[in-house]
């Protein structure tokens, strides 16, 4: 559930960029990991200073000891904890938008394929920073985050999933709304025909960067939520999990529309769980390690979708119900 919610948020963020504005952002890892890392780096520090915890310990290097002081406070005061949760979600969004701003520098200048490669590289650079620059998230061992959901006790899993789902639903509703506004319409117009949009007085550069920042902010929120939910972050946010899988999901569901993104995410996450769950059944039957089956099936699905449903399960463009006779 939690994974579904996080992926839904990130996929909506990606869909705004690729599906609606036509910017092939292969670097959403930058925004997702940026949201996660910056939230992780700031959360303990903020908790220490805002809760007035007196300590000489370093929030990053002596992270576990500091959290032993912070977490009991959060556990006993659910409202404060929820306040922190909301604050961290905002930080994640701002961090994502910031990453989007960085991505948009090449994005408004480069052509599609070069842009995709450049943004792909950006995501990798952030991981290198995460490993090498210890004050951020403590280098390779990573860092723990204050547990803002501890108050739920043994219902933590449900509380976490619930919060994530709630945020995801809110973002889904917002994205559905934005697509229908004149703003969304102009983004789609730019995607469909850039020179004409320019001839109609649209500031292409501004719209493209706004779209990237909006999409990246959502990806950042997704990353921050995932970090808060799993209470730990290591600089191993993989390109595979946080770039290719979201792409696969929006391809599967159908780009440029909200419902497609929802269906794609739902099918994919379910499939994902099923494959991992039933993997053990195939031990001994398949001539290779069953771990690879997951990747093989994903590749297979991608190819099938691209051949038979290139517009996804729910295409953006549906034939009008009432065919009007041609003039």
């Amino acid at each position, binding site marked *: 559930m939690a994974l579904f919610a996080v992926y839904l948020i990130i996929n909506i963020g990606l869909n705004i960029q690729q599906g609606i504005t036509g910017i092939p952002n292969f670097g959403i890892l930058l925004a997702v990991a940026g949201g996660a890392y910056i939230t992780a780096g700031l959360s303990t520090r903020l908790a220490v200073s805002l809760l007035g915890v007196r300590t000489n310990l370093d929030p990053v290097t002596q992270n576990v000891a500091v959290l032993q002081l912070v977490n009991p406070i959060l556990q006993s005061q659910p409202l404060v904890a929820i306040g922190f949760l909301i604050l961290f979600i905002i930080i994640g969004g701002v961090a994502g938008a910031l990453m989007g701003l960085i991505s948009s520098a090449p994005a408004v200048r480069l052509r599609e394929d070069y842009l995709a490669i450049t943004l792909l590289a950006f995501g990798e650079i952030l991981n290198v920073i995460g490993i090498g620059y210890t004050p951020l998230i403590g280098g390779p061992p990573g860092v723990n985050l204050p547990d803002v959901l501890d108050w739920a006790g043994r219902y933590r899993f449900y509380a976490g999933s619930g919060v994530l789902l709630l945020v995801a639903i809110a973002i889904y509703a917002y994205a559905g709304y934005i697509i229908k506004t004149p703003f969304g319409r102009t983004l789609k117009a730019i995607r469909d025909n850039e020179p004409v949009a320019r001839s109609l*007085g649209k500031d292409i550069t501004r719209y493209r960067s706004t779209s990237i920042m909006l999409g990246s902010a959502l990806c950042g929120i997704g990353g921050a939520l995932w970090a808060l939910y799993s209470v730990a972050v290591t600089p191993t946010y993989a390109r595979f999990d946080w770039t290719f899988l979201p792409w696969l999901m929006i391809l599967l569901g159908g780009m440029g529309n909200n419902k497609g993104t929802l269906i794609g995410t739902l099918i994919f996450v379910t499939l994902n769980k099923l494959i991992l769950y039933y993997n053990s059944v195939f031990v001994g039957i398949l001539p290779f390690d069953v771990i690879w089956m997951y990747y093989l099936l994903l590749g297979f699905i991608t190819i099938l979708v691209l051949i038979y449903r290139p517009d996804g399960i729910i295409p953006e463009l549906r034939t009008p119900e009432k065919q009007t006779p041609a003039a």
Partner: protein
Amino acid sequence: MESILKVQGVKKSFGSLHALDGVTLNVEEKKLTILIGPNGSGKTTLINVITGFQKPDEGHIHYGSKEITGWSPQEIYRTGIARTFQIPSMFGKLTVLENLLVAEKNHPGESLTKSIFKRLWAKRETDTIEKATKIMELLGMSEQLSTPASLLSGGQMKLVEIGRALMSDANLYLLDEPVSGVNPTLAHEIFARIIRLREQFGITFFIVEHRLDIALKYVDYVNAMASGKLLAAGPPEQVISDPKVIEAYLGA
């Protein structure tokens, strides 16, 4: 008589090719002027230079009392010049109505922050839809409003392009081959509608067109170009009987 657009000595080269080699011409207000010339004579380049898609190497362009040389396409659109493209250029996944709505100038709902609050732009949107519907009625396409633009025929796309340009409330319209690839009946109809629009709104058209058989009976002035230079300008009868123009066209 007032010239709304003045092009003076404009030059534009691509490498060693002189696409525009010192073009000077005027477009008279509230008239229908066409620009003719063989393929590669620089007609589309001239449109691109006037609308800011390409920057001229030399020369000046004045719109009314303003010098617009080197302005960006956005600025030129806002100042009151709209254009269409030679190849039908639709926003394919948007409907015909949406194609027109996009062209609205300074729509508050187009800003990310304002789009959140529907009451800030709902009224404007309703007005814009009404305006777009009227324009499509004038062009005889009110039945196609909700059709996705990519499903239209070539001729219909040409009409939608004109309609989209009209949304701008511009004074000067530069149409790049509005009837190319359109059957003769519809082509005549398109020109007849252009004439009607000009009379109704008092707007100016500057049209690049190859098909003289169709265009000539509707136009007020003709400019003829060849190899990046203006050969002749004036009323239709005078220009087409000009020996230089005949030579350029027929290669005689």
